[in-house]
């Protein structure tokens, strides 16, 4: 643990009112200031990495609201990742079931993209061929172990086609090529929201970008970094850099808030690796969130609407707190003709998705989801836009169970922009290869 970061916290408490777990319990240990105090006590030798400390670090959402609030600029991301790595290393939370799931997700599925897609295909078959319906009707899901059973209704619906099948390896805009960009398709995004990746590509094409989409993409490693496996995160960072040479493109585009926040800091992971440190720095400077990229390069305002008249916007934590991108997604929504953007109260308050928090801390996650949906409802908007697959799934899951809610649609700003472009009268398709 980097002591100078710990020391940067002057325990002023300004982060407390923005921390969802503190606001829930009003106990200092559940606050950023309290968690940092515990880390510091460990660094000072006043206590050991205990089970209770481990639980605390997994009760933290990693939402980074505290980073936005902190006057002293404490780098909580690094503290959080290092603390969870310490927890894993000291094995204080270990039990056979937990180890098995960690191994299966962190070391197998999210290290091996082909395997993940294969699992996605299986899941798709299960969902589409009626087996899911059968299993639910016959209550076969009761045969699943407890945790999985609870999760079953939250399992994302697999896309009919994954990004590969929707986006060619290289696509060119109709007119002049202004920029050459690489598109990251993500893991969950690829399996559950490949249409949003297609929309992202379309929006880039419409704005003069040549889009390069590598075929088999690795996980960005944020899951690993946030869950105490920095060595795996570093390995994935190297694989990403091997996959896309940052020299070869003007920007590396990500459309998932959670991934982007991590993708921009590969030099932290690879700073000590002479073979990669230089390229990691270049990589960090080239990674751009799609909204950030569109606004800085001056995207073209669509001439048509997107088929919706009102929307509200929920900010992904790692987009607004992690990457400080708040203005740009709103600018995109506001550029769509005929669309009224209704501000959401507490728009930057975590929705409880927080990576795999909804699995590890279902109760706190459910409370946050309720708080979020109550706020959504107060806007009376029929749709909510967000820009992270985790938030998207969480909101959609919540709304499915709230049949009384006026809000029926979860969407993303890029998808709405893509729809608006598609609706333009002169539009005959945005690119050559499709």
């Amino acid at each position, binding site marked *: 643990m980097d002591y*100078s970061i710990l*020391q*940067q916290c*002057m*325990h*002023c*408490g*300004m982060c*407390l*009112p923005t921390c969802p777990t503190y606001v829930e319990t*009003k*106990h*200092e*240990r559940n*606050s950023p*200031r*309290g*968690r940092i*105090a*515990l880390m510091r*006590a460990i660094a000072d030798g*006043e*206590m050991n990495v*205990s089970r*209770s*400390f481990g639980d*605390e670090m997994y009760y933290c959402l990693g939402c980074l609201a505290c980073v936005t609030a902190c*006057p*002293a*600029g404490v780098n909580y991301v690094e503290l959080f990742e290092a603390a969870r790595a310490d927890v894993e290393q000291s094995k204080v939370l270990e039990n056979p079931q937990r180890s098995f799931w960690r191994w299966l997700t962190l070391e197998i599925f999210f290290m091996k993209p082909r395997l993940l897609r294969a699992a996605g295909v299986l899941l798709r078959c299960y969902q589409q061929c009626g087996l899911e319906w059968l299993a639910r009707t016959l209550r076969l899901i009761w045969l699943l172990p407890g945790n999985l059973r609870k999760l079953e209704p939250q399992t994302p619906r697999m896309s009919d086609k994954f990004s590969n099948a929707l986006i060619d390896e290289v696509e060119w805009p109709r007119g002049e090529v202004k920029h050459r960009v690489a598109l990251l398709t993500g893991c969950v995004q690829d399996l559950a929201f490949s249409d949003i990746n297609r929309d992202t590509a379309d929006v880039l094409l419409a704005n003069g970008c040549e889009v390069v989409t590598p075929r088999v993409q690795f996980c960005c490693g944020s899951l690993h970094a946030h869950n105490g496996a920095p060595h795996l995160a570093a390995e994935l960072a190297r694989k990403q850099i091997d996959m896309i040479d940052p020299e070869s493109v003007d920007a590396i585009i990500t459309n998932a808030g959670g991934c982007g926040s991590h993708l921009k800091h590969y030099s932290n992971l690879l700073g000590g690796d002479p073979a990669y440190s230089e390229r990691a720095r270049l990589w960090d400077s080239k990674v751009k969130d799609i909204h950030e990229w569109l606004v800085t390069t001056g995207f073209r305002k669509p001439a048509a609407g997107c088929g919706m008249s009102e929307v509200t916007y929920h900010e992904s934590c790692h987009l607004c707190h992690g990457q400080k991108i708040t203005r740009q997604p709103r600018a995109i929504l506001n550029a769509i003709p005929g669309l009224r953007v209704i501000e959401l109260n507490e728009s930057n308050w975590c929705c409880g998705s927080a990576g795999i928090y909804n699995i590890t801390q279902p109760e706190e996650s459910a409370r946050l989801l309720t708080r979020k949906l109550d706020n959504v409802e107060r806007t009376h908007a029929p749709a909510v836009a967000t820009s992270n697959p985790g938030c998207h799934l969480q909101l959609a899951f919540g709304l499915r169970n709230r049949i009384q809610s006026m809000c029926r649609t979860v969407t993303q700003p890029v998808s709405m922009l893509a729809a608006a472009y598609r609706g333009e009268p002169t539009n005959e398709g945005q690119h050559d290869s499709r």
Partner: protein
Amino acid sequence: MNSHGSFLQSIAASLAPERVLTQKEDLIPYSFDGTAALKQRPLCVVFPLDTAEVSACVKLCAEHRVPVVTRGSGTGLSGGSVPVADCVVLCLVKLDKILELDTRNLTLRAQCGVITKEIDDAAAQHGLFYPPDPGSMKISTIGGNVAENSGGLRGLKYGVTRDYVMGMTVVLPDGCVATLGNKCVKDVAGYSLKDLFIGSEGTLGIITEVLLKLLPRPVARRTMLALYDSMEAAARTVSAIIAARIIPCTLEFLDRMTVGCVESYAKIGLPTDVEALLLMETDGHPAAVDDEAAQMVEIARQNGAREIKMASDEAEGARLASARRNAFSALARVKPTTILEDVTVPRSELATMVKFIAETAARHRLQIGTFGHMGDGNLHPTFLTNERDHEEMVRVELALEEIVGHTIALGGTITGEHGVGLAKKMFLRQQLGDASFELLRLVKNAIDPTAILNPGKIFD
């Protein structure tokens, strides 16, 4: 330990067990408040829910002779809620209800754990205003504000917390509950005891409810920013504004070092070679505000401001004010340890004091940025240092002593709004003189003879 064991059992029995914390991991985060370099682990932390529970806790503590350290949100900057050894931390954040908003008498009654900003937000919903706005208002509790008599940016025109407290409920050191003050604007029945508890830093009683005065909310506001080549010129501007019978709601300054830090952090386009930046705001009736703003700009120009900006709307006002709002954040990032001081001098001595601080910093090879409330002479010399650099910390101590000494020599006070607590207690006798220092002690002994409430704070 054994006696503690039985005490812990009884307190857990009188509150719910989940509202008594005793585990190491729960206690370490209560070992400090917002003050640098002070820490002490308590025996336990308890969370009462109302006055009756506070009273029950205090009675138990009195019976077992266990010291009580009252805590709001722990943002204090003088060590007021830092625990003492083997004490109970009485954390009041769960007394968090606004009890009544009386629009006929313009008062608000709230439990002590309500967040300051929520009080003003509640008032605003009725077109009313709770003016005291400490920099920590998004998290500080109203009880903590009253116990510290906190000030804020609007002090010059609107006063400090004391000016808005009409009454309170206090739990005394023996657990008895007293109600002080009422909704009457005029009240001279007996000593004004509520005033004794305002600023008492948890050493006399536990304030569980407060009755606050509200004002009509001002409808208009104008923000201006002026840059100067000397602090004296900025100070002259302030004197001239007040001589012109204008009381602005904000008159805040940053010194050269602070402007430099703000610019490198927030990049708002400030020139970094200015000696002083003055942020001015006037509020009230729209016509009066426009008139006063025009006069203030003119006065600033006459007194040598090198550049003046007037905001045309709220958004631009916020942009100008961001220079002041970012001051603390900008300074806090420079070094690992940030020590925020708050010596205060009569307004007329402010420029002299700022200069003295800059010279002291140079003499001791320290980084000190000074900003603060120019209208009321309250300065925040901010030491940027590293508590692990012991040699430098010695120089910090020396510089602080010199600054405090000079403050007193200029007729000022060792603390304008942060309180004495632990951080300033060695200077208190020097500040007050023997007779008034002993009087203070007499009051403490009369109300809390067994020294059970926040012992060792303010004085030994």
